[in-house]
């Protein structure tokens, strides 16, 4: 059987609004995923560290404090630095549409706005993790064959 999809739901920075993060965490858990909820007041570093340690497929960040344009790019950079870019970054919160678009351009795979049904998030994760694991599998095979050749 395929391994369960592993997700980390993170609350970076000082923001205390955790209703959305907890509802999404519970919905993903009920949809059969392994969910790690970081709790409040995490640094970007600690979230990325936990994501790597826990070998997650996806990081979901919840930001309602207005600090999204600082935090998302920082997490992207950390993932790059740690060579963990295969972990998908997504998130949501109180974020103007214009900023959501900017963040998606920078490399956040998808931003979810207020009112998104949890089923939509579950479907999106299922689809994108599956697509990703297919890609990594082919990559791994390619790598192997590459090695054999040398």
């Amino acid at each position, binding site marked *: 059987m395929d391994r369960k999809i592993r997700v980390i739901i993170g609350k970076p920075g*000082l923001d*205390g609004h*955790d*209703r959305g993060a*907890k509802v999404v965490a519970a919905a993903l858990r009920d949809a059969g995923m392994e969910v790690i909820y970081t709790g*409040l007041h995490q640094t970007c570093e600690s979230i990325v560290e936990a994501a790597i340690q826990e070998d997650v497929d996806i990081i979901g960040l919840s930001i309602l*404090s*207005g600090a999204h344009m600082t935090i998302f790019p920082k997490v992207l950079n950390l993932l790059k630095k740690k060579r963990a870019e295969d972990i998908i970054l997504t998130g949501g919160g109180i974020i103007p549409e214009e900023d959501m678009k900017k963040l998606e351009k920078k490399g956040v795979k998808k931003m979810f706005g*207020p009112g998104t049904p949890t089923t939509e998030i579950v479907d999106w994760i299922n689809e994108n993790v599956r697509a990703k694991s297919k890609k990594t599998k082919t990559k791994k095979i390619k790598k192997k064959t590459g090695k054999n050749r040398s």
Partner: protein
Amino acid sequence: MKKDDWEKKSKTCKERDQEFTTVSGLPIKTLYTHEDLKDFDYDRDLGYPGEFPYVRGVYTNMYRGRLWTMRQFSGFGTPKDTNKRYKYLLKHGQTGLSVAFDFPTLYGRDSDDAFACGEVGKCGVAIDTLRDMEILFNGIPLDKISTSMTINPPAAILLAMYIAVGEKQGVPTNVLTGTIQNDMLKEYQAQKTWIYPPEPSMRIITDIMGYCSDNVPKWNTISISGYHIREAGSTALQELAFTLKNGFTYVEYGIKAGLSVDKFAPRLSHFFNSHLDFFEEIAKYRAARRIWARMMQNKYNAQNPRSYLMRFHTQTAGCTLTAQQPENNIIRTAFQAFAAVLGGTQSLHTNSMDETFALPTEKAVKIALRTQQLIACETGVANTIDPLGGSYYIETLTDEMEKGAYEYFEKIDKLGGVVAAIDKGFFQREISRSAYEYQKKLERKERFHVGVNIFKEDEKVNIEILKISKEVERDQVKLLKKVKKERNNAKVKETLKRLRMAAANDENLMPKILDCVKAYATLGEMCNTLKEEFGEYHEPIIF
């Protein structure tokens, strides 16, 4: 026609395919009559406005004498930016101020703290030292305007800064009017801004209560808040029960600290949410007044009638606003504000339509303020007191709310009281469970939210958004550095040392904090000093 006949007839009628419950899930009957109020006793259960048990209102002539205070919660960017917004709101007829602080300030951190990066001035105004408060209230006479400050773990410090600004304006402390939220219990339960563990937090709160009853007698020392409990996802009943139980816990700690209940209780105020279910909200406010009065008299033996008064502020429910078709939020907010007024609120904040995207623009906040002015000036609801009193439905709901709250009180007592129940994660679990249930109901379409799961549209949202520039953080850090350079650092060190000693020795912290503030010690320096003595809180992880 007899009631039985009507009931028979009614059962043959087809009903809409919908669950008939309040938004919190209480079942609702087709009709309420005098039979629902069989044991109803007017004098015992309602009384007259300004008289025990205050169900009909806390003052004798309520809005006939004075309308509620129109108080928009507001703050963003630098103190200069916010000062400008305050003057704008006052110019347009707002009657009180309410300060929103940014996250670093709420957590007692300075703008140059590593954790503050990206958050300075974003969610509210940044305050580091007394200099910032001087700018924030520049040109606003503190003897004429009342100010509410949403601040919790560092409440004592912000109050001290306000007192110091008043002093510079020549306003004595016994003239200052306003409120600090200072409700730490609901922070652990719902709003989640904390620094110290519960016990030292309760000690700071009783210090403030003691200091203010002697020195700042018109100041509301705690705003016992259900707003955030509701926003975090609770039902109306949970909001009511948890808020009041928190309130009684402050009363118990005050008495335990040796304060006279009739001296501090009259300065306790409350703060509730106004959510979607019109009648349920009104019943909640009425029940809250009755429970508070009865418990203060019977359980806590208060003698001063002012101790029985549950005065409260209301804010319309931010969590009900939608990013879809955002203009609808104006109407949603108007209904919620209407409920708060019919429920007898003392002050009111109406949310702006654009708050699911960012802090509100001037235009959006003006519409929100105008909504209150429309209710006050055009609808006629302020002409008579408690116009829904005596309604079979409202009185039944009020009774049910009261009964449900007492059941919760018993449950919490069995867990060892509020602080013990926080340690056990009781409130946190109850609230997150309700939040998840509500979301599931929306997704199963058992509850409707216009624009979200019914009457949806493919739309391009096109409304103006308030932007906080990057320069805010830079300017704020620059000013902080300047203040630190210009102040007498030896004096700052000395006042901080005395604060630490007072914390260790159970002395009242307020006078020491005032000395630190006047020496221009920073918020972060003071909070860190107390942290060294009190330690830090860590939450249990529950979802």
